[in-house]
């Protein structure tokens, strides 16, 4: 490894953690949210400030706000109350966090990240802590603690890897979520979370692209698909009475390499004749509210059911996105349901009834496509992906908050001839995060992202060296945005692709012309024989 790269090394921690303070050095934290973004979302204490300022201009009664906030959440969330009490500090979770592995900073051990809040809980909310203070593991709540919370709760991607190994299932992501909610109460937010959240809320996508430009983009995608395949596809937006509402992360409409996945969706929907519609109002499946507070998550998510109701669709299909699926699988129905105005999704092509989503009525596209392929309803020519030697990155949320593991793999194996898994300790429920999830994927935070993404990158490097892998497939919009620079840094020569992009390459369309390029315009070579899969 060349010496001008960030040096990753782990040293044994020494001394007393309560005596150390975070070092807000450039590259390891995100800018604060602008007052406009707080105002647009009606959030408290908007003001200009930056984490590197000595004075954070906290509201006068910040301490009381935080203590009240903790109390309220202890009463509302059994998870929070239990996780404050249960930890035995066994250390099993310590080296499971990619941020600890990549930064070597002991406060990035999940157990200690949680202790940052737990020590305050003990001091103010337990008898022993009130009586014995430090001896009972308590700590005074000071402005330095607030700064520490901000630093370390925005160095956790809420990936839940630690929770897999904890004997009590303590989920530090849950503690981070509560920690961020508390910071929210005193107006300490990051712009990379609130800016997309505010744009999704007001306009309908994370970049704030107005509806007519959204339509332009999608029409452009249809043109491009026609150029590549010779097939003209119709792409309805806001079509009332369509059978299916399709919701993708909005990055798919606007940025690369996500955009190639959009081409894949369009090709697939056209080929099977799906009666579907996009939405400009609820065009965003991604939910940056999840990274801020439960309430904001709910406010953003509500649009999807509202739009499904307005358009009178029968069910909802969701695109490739990680945290969007955490929200859909674990929160949507509870928060904004019941979806009694929808029907249990039934594939119009195969007739499969997707009973496992009979309440939420929202299906993952990998579940939908795997069924299509398994029932032999689409023709695939995997040789058209022969220029790719593919591995698959399980995004944290579909893996550990859902268990969507084999569906995308089935789609990939059907669409590609060369597929290789990364080491077992880095895939499926053990998967390592991209290092930039939960709203940390911003440029000013680059060093910390490269550190956090290091374990994932090393696993990719391993299959690159061993199997000449040159494509990393994934089903997450954040992954598609942040893995390219990560891999460029640690393991150059690997492209990041969507599962439905690769499916789109292999998918044989009725009436298509001889394809010479894949969906990203790279030349492919098609042998003259029959397709290998039918």
């Amino acid at each position, binding site marked *: 490894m060349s010496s001008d790269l960030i040096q990753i090394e782990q040293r044994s921690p020494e001394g007393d953690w309560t005596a150390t303070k975070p070092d807000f050095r450039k590259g390891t934290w995100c800018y604060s949210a602008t007052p406009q973004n707080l105002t647009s979302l009606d959030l408290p204490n908007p003001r200009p400030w930056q984490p590197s300022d000595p004075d954070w201009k906290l509201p006068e009664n910040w301490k009381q706000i935080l203590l009240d906030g903790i109390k309220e959440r202890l009463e509302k969330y059994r998870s929070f109350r239990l996780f404050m009490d249960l930890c035995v500090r066994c250390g099993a979770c310590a080296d499971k966090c990619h941020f600890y592995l990549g930064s070597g900073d002991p406060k990035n051990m999940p157990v200690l990240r949680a202790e940052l809040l737990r020590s305050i809980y003990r001091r103010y909310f337990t008898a022993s802590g009130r009586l014995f203070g430090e001896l009972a593991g308590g700590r005074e709540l000071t402005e330095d603690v607030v700064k520490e919370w901000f630093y370390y709760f925005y160095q956790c991607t809420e990936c839940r890897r630690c929770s897999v190994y904890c*004997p009590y299932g303590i989920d530090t992501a849950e503690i981070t979520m509560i920690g961020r909610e508390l910071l929210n109460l005193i107006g300490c937010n990051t712009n990379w979370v609130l800016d997309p959240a505010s744009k999704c809320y007001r306009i309908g996508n994370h970049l704030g692209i107005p509806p007519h430009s959204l339509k332009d983009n999608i029409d452009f995608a249809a043109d491009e698909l026609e150029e590549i395949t010779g097939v003209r596809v119709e792409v309805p937006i806001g079509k009332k009475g369509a059978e299916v509402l399709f919701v993708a992360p909005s990055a798919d409409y606007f940025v690369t390499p996500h955009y190639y996945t959009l081409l894949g969706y369009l090709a697939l929907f056209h080929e099977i004749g799906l009666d579907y519609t996009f939405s400009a109002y609820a065009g965003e499946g991604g939910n940056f509210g999840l990274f801020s507070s439960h309430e904001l998550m709910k406010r953003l998510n509500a649009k999807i059911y509202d739009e499904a109701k307005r358009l009178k669709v029968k069910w909802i299909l969701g695109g490739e996105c990680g945290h969007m699926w955490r929200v859909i699988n674990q929160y949507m129905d509870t928060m904004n349901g019941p979806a009694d105005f929808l029907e249990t999704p039934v594939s119009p092509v195969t007739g499969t009834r997707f009973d496992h989503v009979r309440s939420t009525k929202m299906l993952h596209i990998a579940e939908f496509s795997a069924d299509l392929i398994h029932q032999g309803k689409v023709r695939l020519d995997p040789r058209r992906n022969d220029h790719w030697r593919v591995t698959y990155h399980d995004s944290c949320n579909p893996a550990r908050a859902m268990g969507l593991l084999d569906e995308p793999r089935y789609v990939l194996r059907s669409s590609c001839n060369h597929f290789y898994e990364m080491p077992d300790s880095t895939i499926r429920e053990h998967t390592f995060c991209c290092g930039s999830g939960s709203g940390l994927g911003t440029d000013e935070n680059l060093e910390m992202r490269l550190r956090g993404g290091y374990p994932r990158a090393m696993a990719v490097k391993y299959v690159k060296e061993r199997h000449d892998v040159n494509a990393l497939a994934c089903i997450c919009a954040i992954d598609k945005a942040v893995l390219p620079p990560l891999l460029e840094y640690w393991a150059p020569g690997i492209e990041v692709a969507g599962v439905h992009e690769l499916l789109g390459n292999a998918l044989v369309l009725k009436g298509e012309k001889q394809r010479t390029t894949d969906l990203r315009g790279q030349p492919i070579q098609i042998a003259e024989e029959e397709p290998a899969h039918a």
Partner: protein
Amino acid sequence: MRYRAGFALLIALAPACAGVALAFLPKPFLVLAPAAAYAACAIFLLGLPARLWRWTSSPVPFRIPTTCGQQRSLAWIPPARLDNPSTGLAAAARMLLEVLTFRSLLRNSRSRAGDGAVHTRDSLGLWLAAILFHWSLLIILLRHLRLFVQPVPAFVLTLQKLDAPFHTGAHPLYLSDLALLVALAYLLLRRLADPVVRYVSLLSDYLALWLLLGVGLTGVLMRYLVGVDVASIKQFAISLAVFSPVLPRNCGPWFFAHLFLACSLAAYIPFSKIAHMAGVWLSPTRNLANNNRAVRHINPWNAPVKTHTYAEWLEENKDKLKSAGIPQ
């Protein structure tokens, strides 16, 4: 806070010393023994449910299991029934096996980053120590029934036999005694010697271990090294069990040390992390089924929130929709 382990040891020594001292105090003081036993039992029996009640009084607003395997989705994809349970029954099985076999710790590994790699190796020491400790403690507690019940129940006799397969002479060596002490020693040494675990350890983490070691060591001491009058101890124990306590005569200083340490431990449990014995059952990342999309979970405090409605959005975007030909 560098002296956490030492401080904790001093605290744990207090009940041990008090116990030893009791043996040399005038007889009336012996009344402290049954008093301590009843007080500790009361604190334990009331404290633990109180703690449980406190935990359960906070609702479970969302169903958030940590999924550790394939979900149940399409009929032809085999789901991970235990690690990603799709029914309440499967979740119960996951929970039960977690408690009985510590499956999450069984996944444990050690990773180190550096030199262009992350080196990961299996690490089962913690799992082994934890399982040895918890199971031997259970066996030892059950064996203690022979002191409280007359005649000794048959299953206790069987357990004793199984626990001492190399039975020779009058003092069979119970494997559980050995396992308990070895496991506790490992857990303590690990806490002191592993820089990561030492860094995160609190005084209370050491206190729990010292108390347990104290109880274990005094017990082993009485059983194998210093002779004690078992008949007297049993008489005292039975008298406690039937709520007509007699004064514990001829029981000796080690017995009182053992008793006071055990009482301190029992009374400490409801207020300490050892209450995980009850709390683990409630953990929402482990005891819930991942069936949110099939069965709606209800949040008791679910409240309406302010949203940006379609009507508001339409108002702001009417022209744009019109110019783009998007239906309204």
